[in-house]
């Protein structure tokens, strides 16, 4: 068979991505229709930059969600004769396989397009959750540090600065290594890091509902049960049902990324808290006799949401970059993993002769991070407007 022309390649890719287009059109139609009722999210659709950013992010999110329908080949299987095949090459002997490698083959004769799609899933499975856990840790430590001040603040700030003074890359080299995975260090760190979100939600609900013990007991009970279940699965890999699990590799990467991100979030939250705690509504709550955790979590935190939401978007992007860095140095991922960083690393050896295996994931990663940055920019613009 003839290799495809660039126009045919694009048309076929667009056809493979059909579920993504449908989902995107639906999201935009619904959001624009009801944008006045959707708060900050609805206002996003007033800004062009924000809309473009949101579009790119949702595109990758839907690609990751529908990856199973989009891929043309298995991301690990090798097809003979397709080593370093140029984009649009036809398979020699397709049988029941998709007859073309749309974006060519890599140095191990695997389909670049399918690996890119599965790579999106790898990245979006970790980055938002790592950013979320970092945020919960940063908030849980940053609020009391800013609100109470004193020795607690000095101690926590010193610790945060200590981690921040570490060059990120050195920390990765030290922390994400096969030898470290055999020691209890990642488990212990995960044990501490994952405990914080459970504590955060428990305190959050307790501070709100402690006057209504029945409700409080119910909510806190549910959170503790689900939290303990997830905790056992994620940290000890011992979930009886098997819903929550993390391979030692993944846990190691996750812990390292959270560890790098949390101090920055801590500094941001602490700064905002220092500013907000002098406001009148905080003084009013203190006069009413509210407890410190209620004031921190239900008076200060909601009023700090603007900058935090913006930073959350940026942080997912930064986490994506960090994951790519880890992949690029071959740290903490299995060699055949389709994540973008390791694919770039694998493709760079033959870069000057066959650029496509490295270029495709490179451009994907760049577009996702760009989308997140544009989204953050749009959100900042719109949240400043009120």
């Amino acid at each position, binding site marked *: 068979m003839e290799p495809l022309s660039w126009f045919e390649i694009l048309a076929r890719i667009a056809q493979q991505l059909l579920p993504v287009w449908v989902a995107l059109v639906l999201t935009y139609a619904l959001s624009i229709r009801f944008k006045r009722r959707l708060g900050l999210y609805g206002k996003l659709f007033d800004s062009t930059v924000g809309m473009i950013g949101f579009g790119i992010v949702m595109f990758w999110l839907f690609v990751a969600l529908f990856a199973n329908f989009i891929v043309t080949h298995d991301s690990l299987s090798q097809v003979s004769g397709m080593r370093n095949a140029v984009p649009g090459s036809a398979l020699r002997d397709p049988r029941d396989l998709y007859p073309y490698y749309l974006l060519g083959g890599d140095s191990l004769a695997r389909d670049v397009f399918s690996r890119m799609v599965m790579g999106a899933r790898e990245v979006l499975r970790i980055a938002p959750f790592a950013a979320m856990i970092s945020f919960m840790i940063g908030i849980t430590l940053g609020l009391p540090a800013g609100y109470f001040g004193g020795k607690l603040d000095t101690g926590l700030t010193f610790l945060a600065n200590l981690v921040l003074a570490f*060059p990120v890359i050195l920390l990765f080299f*030290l922390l994400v290594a096969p030898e470290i995975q055999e020691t209890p260090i990642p488990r212990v760190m995960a044990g501490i890091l994952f405990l914080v979100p459970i504590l955060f939600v428990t305190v959050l609900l307790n501070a709100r509902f402690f006057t209504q013990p029945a409700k409080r007991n119910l909510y806190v009970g549910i959170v503790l049960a689900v939290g303990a279940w997830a905790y056992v699965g994620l940290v000890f890999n011992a979930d009886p049902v098997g819903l929550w699990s993390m391979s030692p590799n993944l846990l190691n990467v996750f812990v390292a990324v959270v560890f790098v991100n949390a101090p920055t979030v801590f500094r941001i939250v602490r700064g905002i808290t220092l500013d907000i705690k002098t406001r009148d509504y905080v003084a009013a709550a203190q006069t009413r006799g509210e407890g410190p955790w209620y004031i921190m979590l239900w008076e200060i935190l909601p009023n700090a949401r603007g900058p935090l939401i913006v930073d959350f978007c940026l942080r997912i992007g930064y986490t994506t970059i960090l994951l790519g860095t880890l992949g690029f140095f071959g740290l903490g991922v299995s060699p055949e993993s389709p994540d973008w960083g390791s694919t770039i690393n694998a493709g760079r050896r033959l870069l000057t002769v066959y650029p496509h295996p490295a270029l495709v994931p490179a451009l994907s990663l760049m577009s996702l991070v760009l989308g997140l940055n544009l989204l953050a920019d749009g959100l900042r613009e719109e949240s400043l407007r009120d």
Partner: protein
Amino acid sequence: MLLFLFRRIGLMLVTALCLTIIVFALTNMPAKLETLAKTQAGSRMTDAEVDRWLERNGYASPMLVRYGEWLGVLPGWVRTEDNGTVTGRCVALRGTAEAAGERCGILQGDWGFSTRFRAGVAEVLTARLGATGLLMLWVLAVMVPMALIVGILAGMREGSRTDRALSTFAIASTATPEYVSGVLLIALLASSTVGLSPLLVSWGWIDGPVLFQGNARSALDDITFSNFTLPVLTIALYGMGYVARITRASMTEVMTQQYIRTARLKGVSFGKIVVRHALRNALIAPFTVIMLQIPWLLNGVVISEVLFSYPGFGWTLYEAAINNDIELLLASSVVAVVVVLVTQLISDVGYVYLNPRIRIS
């Protein structure tokens, strides 16, 4: 001011001490020592042989003791073999048993021995740091003016078309990490089969097969435009966007100030307002950010030096890390941490000098 400096330097020392203990602990874990023994003395060693090798080379004493030895506050280990030869930490470093003193750590100026490069850590690092210093010099020379120009042009007239275009460019550059921009630049400019180079060759515009070289190893002897452009650009592009955005934000803020309006009403031309009145005040924030950006560039330096195989500090750090070269890794992390802390100090002190509204009392 002096008291402030002393306190900051004291804090720096405590931080550096904490960080080196962490690095020391992480590089000296039993599993890592076993890897080191196997890479040094053969991969098919039995556990007993590994233990003996560690014992013979002074890795068997408790970790804190060895940290003290490395620091130079505890005497280095000494062993007398059955045949009477004396081995020890200081003996290996200083050559002979007679010349060896009791202590030999970084306090005495002994940085140790690199197992990867089979040379003293100090000489390995000084050579590499020189190479990286050159790289950083060019990166800053490209990055800072470019970032300031982009930021000032964008912030001069907020909301204009120039502002939109330049801001998008700045965002795009912050979204392109070094390993992406490096790959893009190599594919575009340094490949003889794809990108711009074959086109330029066919037009007869360039002599060689490629416009720029994708390998910077030759830059160690002789820096040329063709072998140094890509590594420099790769690092500079990622750092540039952030500085440009800060400059823009600070510039837009200054342009709304009263004194700018006064100058305008006096009839001063727009160009003069920007250069004479706005620029000085607008550059305070970018200065601190540029200083704080230098430690971030370290990341880029490692990636770019590995990608373009330029044997500088970043490349050495990478080699030390993957080979678990403990003493080289420790020395590298000391250098990295000192760079971070010193730039923080300079940015704080510089901020006070540039901004007359802040005084340290």
